[in-house]
């Protein structure tokens, strides 16, 4: 059984945001995996690029960051060097620069540090769910999925509660910058280049810069010296500290990436529960699934549909030549449905093991810094949800984001009964 059947005709324009309005055009990716795994993809908004769609190819290429560089942009859109320099975060750097920054922030997001937040996450989940489940019909993205990552990020960064809704709004505007529901500056329809030097080509990036700077000043003035932000501001082993610019870029990245991706993992998991009723039963009765359930929900969701690299040398592959300077796109959403890597890839199997999904960009140095937090939030949210639910079903059609980059269900009407 598949949870939902892709409806594209197998020849969708995978570069067009509109092709994702009914979810990822998986029939097209299935055809590419089968017939043309290194596909030269025309792109109406810029230079054409190579599409990599097989799980094994993505893993193999992602492990070679010297050949497939992140330092010339990681999105489909082309950037001038000037724009790149102004807008980049450490996601858009290579070794050794990438590692120097990553080492400064890695500890704060490491498994053991994140595990310390388990109780806080559980308490937040309980609060959010009690409120959401006080009615029998609601939009699960809005009242559940959108709430947890925002509040949790605020908690671990030590941000004032009253700032959180504003931060979520700005994070949405940054990342979902191709959906008119989330920004007035729709990226592919913009008539101005006024924001091209700002993070994500968005005015929200500039506002977050100012917020982050003020926040640092406020914390310094108050002598606050605990929490994740302070851990990041501590000097590393070599005595170096994070620069102001690195910090501000990193803060933008946290707000954007930290909000969106976990939200859409939760939404996709709830969608799956609506369509595969046995999932709720398994969650309620089989304690052993929690070792694997979170990762399967995150595989199913694949909130980051792709990331881009740029070839630094000529590479022969599948009888074709990737030229130095060519853009190469790793389609994680396709790799996560690859029949050769996953049995029944279109089914949610909460006990799937091993589960070598690519949702966190596994296999390369840019593997998601927040993966431990994401896994823990998703696991606990579904543990607490299953505990409280008698049943859950769709109460109407769900709606996907208009984005070729963020895979997300932005509206998810559900009907529930309490346990």
């Amino acid at each position, binding site marked *: 059984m598949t949870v939902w059947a892709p409806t594209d005709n197998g020849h969708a324009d995978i570069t067009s945001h509109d092709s994702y309005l009914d979810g990822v055009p998986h029939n097209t990716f299935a055809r590419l995996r089968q017939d043309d795994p290194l596909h030269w993809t025309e792109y109406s908004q810029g230079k054409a690029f190579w599409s990599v769609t097989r799980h094994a190819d993505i893993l193999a290429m992602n492990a070679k960051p010297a050949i497939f560089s992140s330092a010339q942009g990681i999105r489909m859109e082309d950037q001038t060097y000037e724009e790149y320099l102004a807008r980049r975060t450490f996601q858009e750097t290579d070794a050794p620069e*990438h*590692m120097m920054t990553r080492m400064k922030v*890695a500890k704060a997001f490491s*498994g*053991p540090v994140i595990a310390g937040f388990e109780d806080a996450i559980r308490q937040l989940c309980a609060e959010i769910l009690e409120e959401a489940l006080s009615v029998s019909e609601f939009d699960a993205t809005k009242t559940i999925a959108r709430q947890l990552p925002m509040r949790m990020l605020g908690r671990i960064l030590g941000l004032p509660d009253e700032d959180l809704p504003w931060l979520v709004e700005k994070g949405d505007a940054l990342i979902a910058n191709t959906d008119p529901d989330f920004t007035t500056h729709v990226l592919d329809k913009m008539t101005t280049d006024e924001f091209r030097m700002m993070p994500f080509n968005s005015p929200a990036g500039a506002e977050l810069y100012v917020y982050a700077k003020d926040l640092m000043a406020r914390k310094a003035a108050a002598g606050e010296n605990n929490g994740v932000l302070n851990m990041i501001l501590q000097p590393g082993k070599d005595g170096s500290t994070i620069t102001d610019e690195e910090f501000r870029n990193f803060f933008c990245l946290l707000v954007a990436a930290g909000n969106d991706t976990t939200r859409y993992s939760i939404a996709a998991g709830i969608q799956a529960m609506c369509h595969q009723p046995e999932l709720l039963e398994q969650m309620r009765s089989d304690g052993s699934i929690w070792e694997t359930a979170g990762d399967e929900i995150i595989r199913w969701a694949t909130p980051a549909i792709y990331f881009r690299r740029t070839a630094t040398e000529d590479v022969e592959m599948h009888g074709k030549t990737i030229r130095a300077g060519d853009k190469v796109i790793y389609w994680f959403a396709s790799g996560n449905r690859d029949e050769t890597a996953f049995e029944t890839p279109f089914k949610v199997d909460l006990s799937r093991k091993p589960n070598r999904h690519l949702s*966190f960009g*596994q*296999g390369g*140095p840019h593997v998601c810094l927040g993966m431990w937090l994401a896994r823990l939030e998703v696991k606990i949210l579904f543990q607490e949800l299953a505990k409280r639910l008698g049943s859950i079903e769709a109460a109407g059609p769900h709606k996907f984001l208009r984005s070729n980059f963020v895979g997300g269900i932005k509206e998810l009407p559900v009907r529930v009964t309490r346990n």
Partner: protein
Amino acid sequence: MKVTWKNADGTSISAEVAPGVSLMEAAIANNVPHITGDCGGNLACATCHVFVDADWSEKIGPPEDMEDGMLDITAVERTQHSRLSCQIIASEDLDGLVLHMPA
């Protein structure tokens, strides 16, 4: 070379590994639990942490700087025998190597 991964529960997995392959890759190919190698051997994730058997510690040697930094964020706390197995490359002179898995 032959390598043996010993699990905390007393079970173990042994395999022949071709020279030149990292022991992280070998662990994944042999479905060794707890080793996910999430960053593909690029020293960015610490998910291939092992404890080198005391008898082999001297031969394997200590971690270099970058690896040493990443060993600070392992899921199970590091010891003097800790290494990231993506940085240990199979070779014939390591035949018989024993690695202990974090719990």
